[in-house]
């Protein structure tokens, strides 16, 4: 048993897998609109939800807190974008950015109150936000247009170019999703990410290292809010319409399900989750009927046996196959 057998394998397995995945992903992304032109709206939807999910990975995967309230921030991003552009003629891109920042601030405020709560009470409080969103979006007719929704939302206008077609929206989401994935990966592999992981594991011990647990959790929550808001705004610009049916409590659950199933500790996990939950039902009526049951069962199994999600389980399996257990090294000492 030599050092080489134990030490480098884990790291190179991870980076090798990452590069391969990236290459495949980039090629697939470029080719998809030509391979499956009829499924473009599905791809855009997957892209939107990927954005909403990837922002949750620092909070769920590192800081260990589950937020069921993504739909609140999506709603603010969507309805807000509609209002700002229709009523006050704001430029679309500016509206999206400002709303994202606003949601970040809102999350910090909510976080100050909610993050003091133990474990799942935080999740329940955010569930409350999701329920409030569903109710408000239907009831506050003067602002949201009620059940019939908000119409005539303009398309996103970027550097003078109107992002109107499915294809254009898809490519935009690929780029933004890629940036979001890059940012969350950077966070995960930096001191911030390590601090978040420590906070998620044991905030008391993290405090002993000098880490301000509340601040980190609050920032992770803010990140999830900002990406959700952006996703909401882009969805509104794409659909040119928004209604309460898009941000129901069921959708709030399904976003977390996507992250949990796919894996909250990587950039690919939420992609798998979004593809399964959003994509599979589109493949046919039978699929659409069976996916909810399947998704529920997979979530139960994953949460019980594979906390790292499907992507994490794959990674662990690959790593375990190539790496002998370090406890053998004890005999060398």
């Amino acid at each position, binding site marked *: 048993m030599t050092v080489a057998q134990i030490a480098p394998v884990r790291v190179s397995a991870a980076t090798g897998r990452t590069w391969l995945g990236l290459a495949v992903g980039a090629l697939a992304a470029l080719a998809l609109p030509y391979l499956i032109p009829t499924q473009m709206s599905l791809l855009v939807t997957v892209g939107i939800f990927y954005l909403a999910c990837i922002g949750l990975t620092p909070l769920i995967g590192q800081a260990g807190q*589950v937020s069921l309230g993504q739909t609140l921030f999506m709603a603010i991003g969507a309805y807000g974008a509609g209002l700002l552009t229709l009523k006050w003629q704001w430029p679309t891109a500016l509206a999206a950015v400002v709303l994202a920042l606003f949601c970040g601030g809102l999350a910090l405020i909510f976080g100050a*109150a909610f993050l003091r709560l133990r474990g799942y009470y935080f999740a329940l409080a955010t569930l409350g936000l999701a329920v409030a969103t569903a109710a408000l979006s239907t009831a506050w007719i003067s602002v949201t247009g009620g059940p019939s929704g908000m119409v005539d939302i303009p398309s996103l206008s970027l550097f003078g170019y109107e992002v109107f077609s499915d294809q254009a929206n898809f490519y935009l989401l690929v780029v933004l999703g890629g940036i979001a994935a890059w940012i969350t990966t950077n966070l995960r592999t930096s001191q911030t990410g390590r601090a978040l992981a420590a906070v998620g594991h044991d905030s008391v011990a993290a405090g002993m290292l000098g880490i301000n647990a509340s601040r980190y959790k609050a920032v992770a929550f803010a990140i999830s809010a900002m990406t959700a808001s952006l996703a909401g705004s882009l969805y509104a610009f794409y659909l040119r319409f928004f209604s309460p049916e898009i941000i129901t409590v069921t959708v709030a659950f399904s976003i977390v399900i996507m992250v949990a199933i796919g894996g909250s500790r990587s950039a690919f996990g939420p992609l798998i989750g979004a593809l399964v939950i959003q994509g599979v039902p589109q493949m046919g009526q039978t699929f659409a009927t069976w996916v909810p049951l399947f998704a529920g069962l997979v979530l139960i199994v994953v949460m019980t046996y594979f906390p790292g999600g499907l992507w994490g389980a794959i990674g662990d399996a690959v790593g375990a196959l190539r790496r002998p257990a370090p406890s053998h090294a004890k005999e060398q000492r």
Partner: protein
Amino acid sequence: MSDYLQSILGGLADGCVYALIALGMSVIYSISRIISLAQGGFVVLAALCAVSLQSGLGISPLATLPIMVVIFSVGMIGVAQIVIQPAAKRATPERLLLVTVGMLQAVGGLLLIGWGNLPYTMPAFTGDAPVKVAGLSLPTQYFWLAGALAVSVLGLWLLLTKTDIGLAMRATASNPGAAALQGIRVDRMRLIAFGLAGAMAALAGTTIVPITFLQFTTVTPYAVAGFIAAVVGGLGSNMGAVTGGLLLGLLQGVFGRYWNADLAQLTAIALLVAVLVIRPQGIFGTPERVRR
């Protein structure tokens, strides 16, 4: 005036269902510290099973009640054994919550597969002719609902205060570690709690479905209502669960008639969030378990 009373009573009828959902969640929570968001889903499942029994096999609506109670008590024990026990051993509380979300999702999915996306209802237990009381026209089913809630509350109280098992359950609820040291089989207590919750879900579903149309999408509103009622009332407090449920139903009934049902939901949520921030243990709960 009678109009007003009518909507209050209608709201209370819904409130009975919410109270039963919250009560089931509360019993489970006090024994195992698990918040089962799936409870609302099982109510709908029991309701639709009852409908199928009644319309498919010709069993009288009233007779479906005891059948469903038995099936669901046993069934929930099975679910607890297969799903909850392994998860409770391995998962953090946050992940356990997601397991119950998965269960809710799975039940909804099962309903979609088995019953499609159509709404269902069933004839009332004792006929359609309403009872006239003090100038009000009340469906007889309201009495069955109230009865179901009363039976559950009374039965639970009797079980917890007058039986040995109940004593063991109360001991487990107040201090699981000490209870285990005294030889109480904590995991068996957990199974019993789930069994009781199953019985209550069956009671709730079977008695409400003659009054309202239920379908696979109802699982989420019921889960949410149960969760609001349970948390505002105080997780782990049976009295709190019942109070919370009835209050929520009342709010919805009154608001729905005179204003906007969604505003009722909103008020309930505002109340929930306020409770969580100011007094996380709810109206009747005990404070130690919630803050860091």
